[in-house]
């Protein structure tokens, strides 16, 4: 019976293989979407850890997260150096790292920050940033770049790069008067950090020096007036340098900025204090600030992207249904031309039930073949997609190994395949009973 079903399918191998192909595609799609989702989700929630709060000018949680962690877009205005100082002064606060954003390097976000960023930023399971080459920035003219940036443009330690104003990839306003020298390259993390360019706060500010003249920038004007910059940038931005009382020159240009900042990563001494600090930030400061819990914002963001994911899942489900319908069509379409075959089988002693069993077995074979080919597709596709995925999004999809939910899905497809075959099988039953041995052809 099994060999008969195999032969019978082989006899219709063209149509049968097309059916197997559609089932295979749907299997690969369904499992692939799930795996992509799981991997993306994991990498997504790995993108930041070890940061208890992100303080930024008041705005939407997701927007703040997107700009500070993912380097997409920017936060609102209204946070200044004093806000940062106040935050740092809070008892509960262990550390605070300021961030400045809004520029890009050939489409990659440029972040102005302190070298403490490299101490405190964590990703994945509390992994710290590592340098693949070079070291941190020491001066305002130095920059640290993410692994992707280095790989994509072929930058090495010592390369001189020029940033552009704004966040768009194409900008007419290049800061070519203020080039940076790459001092270090971060090891790949699989997070948005790989795509970022880091400069010192003063370095970041120096970019905007020509724009921020003493007349138009009240903050800069208020903080001092001692123009001096070796790269010829307007000195207004460096004014604070002379105000600095902490002594060490390296730290000086690293820690004090006159212009407004876009956000602060905050680490607390105890996580229990999160809600208290959050409340304090939103209630007690003179400026309007928000304190965002990264994990909460990540969940919110995931809820948004989850819509696309649902659409994708729905699509793969639709493909599965279409492929099973295709199988029913294949089996049903052949029934008319196979009436003679069934009559012959009955004449040599096959019961109608056996003939029905034959049809169901053909469906099972087709579905099984589809599932196997689909799994092979999936392995090939993930193998081919993984380098690209890792380059672009910093994560890989597990290639082998079928998870429990995967096997449940495969089982469901198999069961629905068998279930779908009941329709043609029922027709076969009717036909064999009605035709008997005399087929009306």
């Amino acid at each position: 019976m099994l060999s008969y079903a195999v032969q019978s399918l082989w006899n219709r191998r063209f149509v049968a293989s097309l059916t197997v192909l559609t089932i295979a595609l749907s299997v690969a799609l369904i499992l692939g979407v799930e795996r992509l989702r799981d991997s993306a989700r994991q990498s997504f929630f790995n993108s930041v850890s070890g940061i208890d709060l992100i303080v930024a000018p008041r705005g939407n949680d997701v927007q703040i997260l997107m700009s500070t962690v993912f380097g997409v877009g920017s936060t609102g205005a209204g946070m200044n150096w004093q806000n940062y100082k106040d935050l740092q002064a809070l008892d509960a606060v262990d550390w605070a790292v300021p961030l400045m954003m809004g520029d890009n390097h050939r489409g990659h976000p440029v972040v102005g920050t302190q070298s403490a960023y490299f101490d405190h930023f964590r990703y994945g399971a509390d992994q710290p940033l590592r340098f693949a080459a070079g070291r941190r920035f020491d001066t305002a003219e130095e920059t640290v770049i993410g692994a992707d940036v280095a790989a994509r443009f072929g930058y090495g330690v010592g390369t001189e790069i020029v940033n552009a104003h704004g966040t768009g990839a194409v900008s007419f306003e290049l800061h070519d008067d203020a080039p940076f020298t790459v001092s270090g390259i971060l090891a790949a993390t699989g997070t948005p950090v790989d795509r970022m360019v880091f400069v010192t706060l003063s370095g970041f500010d120096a970019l905007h020096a020509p724009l921020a003249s003493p007349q138009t920038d009240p903050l800069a004007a208020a903080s001092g007036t001692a123009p001096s910059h070796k790269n010829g940038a307007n000195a207004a931005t460096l004014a604070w340098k002379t105000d600095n009382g902490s002594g060490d020159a390296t730290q000086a240009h690293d820690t004090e900025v006159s212009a407004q900042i876009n956000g602060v990563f905050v680490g607390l001494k105890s996580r229990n204090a999160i809600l208290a600090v959050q409340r304090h930030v939103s209630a007690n400061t003179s400026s309007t600030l928000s304190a965002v819990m990264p994990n909460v914002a990540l969940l919110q963001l995931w809820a948004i992207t989850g819509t696309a994911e649902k659409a994708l899942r729905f699509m793969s489900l639709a493909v599965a249904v279409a492929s099973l319908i295709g199988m029913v069509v294949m089996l049903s379409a052949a029934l008319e031309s196979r009436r003679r075959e069934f009559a012959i089988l009955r004449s040599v002693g096959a019961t109608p039930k056996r003939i029905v069993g034959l049809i169901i077995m053909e469906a099972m074979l087709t579905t099984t073949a589809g599932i196997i080919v689909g799994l092979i597709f999936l392995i090939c596709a993930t193998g081919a997609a993984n380098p690209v995925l890792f380059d672009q999004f910093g994560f890989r999809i597990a290639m082998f190994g079928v998870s429990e939910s995967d096997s449940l899905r495969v089982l469901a497809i198999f069961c629905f395949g068998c279930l779908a075959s009941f329709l043609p099988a029922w027709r076969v039953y009717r036909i064999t009973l009605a035709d008997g041995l005399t087929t009306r052809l």
Partner: protein
Amino acid sequence: MTRISINDLSFAWPGQDQTVVSIDHFSLEAGERLLLQGPSGSGKSTLLSAISGITSLPNGAVEVVGTDIAKLSSRRRDQFRADHLGMIFQVFNLIPWMSARENILLPITYSKMRKARLQLSPQAEADRLLKALGLDPATVGLQPAANLSVGQQQRVAAARALIGSPEVILADEPTSALDERAKHRFMDVLNQQVQDTGASLLMVSHDETLGRHFDRVVSFEKLNRCCAVAC
């Protein structure tokens, strides 16, 4: 010994009022070769269906090899048919994508009884029958049935009906697609094998020239009281 005996059979297809076959008495003896002759549409094929147990019949009307067909469940009837009857149809006897030899072996897969009766291995028996029916097992035997000529196909069908020596061979116009020469040659080789296996042959045909191949020729019109209505 009587292989088939029919008494007071009156048969109408389910859901139809009109009786198509109505027979007082009919019998086929062991080893007998009988031609049931009558025009097309006279209900001959219906009678074969009734004998082969495809349809439900009134109790006691048809006995095949001493068994009342009507008393068997439909599953048992299918098994009974596989065990005791070999059938040859008008055309399209074979499953086209199977080789001639695989077609011949089909009844063996459904009937343990017929398999047990084989003297040789199934393969060898199939080849023996092919040879006896004038076909070359090495070439024709391995061809897909669809590639064979109609004459060859009918011989393969005969071999399939004969394998495992069933008691009765039912043949429904097996020669109607053959030309004059092929027809008589087919009948000759079929008769030879039927004699060898000791089977009874019941053939229905409208062809009046076949009479010389049979022990007995019965006019279906005379046998079937309904014929006047049915035609």
